[in-house]
């Protein structure tokens, strides 16, 4: 069980590291291996990123759908992920 979360990053992206830290922290807090994180380098997976509608980094997708297209606030992202988990 759990949900798949993808973080779209790119080399030299100033805010991507911060976005990854936030998600990792949320995933650790929720625990139980419920959030399956994957880092996506948009330069390596350009077709996939464009198909999802990624137009800048960082961006975050849940279950293959783009949900956030900027640096998220931890509170907002936590709320979204908890909602998705409750639906899954």
């Amino acid at each position, binding site marked *: 069980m759990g949900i798949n979360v993808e973080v779209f990053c790119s080399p*030299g*992206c*100033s*805010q991507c590291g911060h976005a990854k830290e936030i998600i990792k922290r949320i995933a650790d807090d929720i625990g139980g291996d419920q959030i399956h994180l994957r880092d996506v380098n948009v330069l390596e997976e350009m077709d996939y990123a*464009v198909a999802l509608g*990624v*137009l*800048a*980094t960082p961006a975050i997708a849940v279950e293959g759908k783009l949900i956030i297209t900027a640096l998220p606030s931890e509170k907002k992202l936590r709320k979204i992920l908890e909602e998705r988990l409750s639906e899954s």
Partner: protein
Amino acid sequence: MILKISSPQDIDTAKYYRIGDVIRLLGLSADTLRYYEKIGLLPPVNRTPSGIRIYNKQDLSRLRFIKRAQKMRFTLAEIGMLMNMRTNPQHARDEVRQLTANKLAEVELNLAEIQVLRDELRLLLNLCRGSEDGCPIIETIDEDITPAKS
């Protein structure tokens, strides 16, 4: 009276166009314009008593259609058939209708590909803007074109 056209904004106020005006407005050569007329892509263009070609708005509309179709790499023969459809869609032959449907499918496919390309270019540009350590696009291109050191 013939109006002299100097810019595309003048199009709405002009009714007739000399060949030079059409060349300027559409970027087609005089030879091309005469050739289209010769092969029937354009109906015979009106002329002044002294024989000067005078194009009207419908002619310009047809020429724009031809230009667009050529950009899509349609052949002149195909464009000719589409022009017939454009002139009289209700009475088009089945073969012309089928060609039009096929060309529509081609255009839609191209459009989808162009949209993907646009999104990809937008993303690349945004990656350049958002980067602290230089532009990842340029670095990636450099990696691709720089021969590996032995």
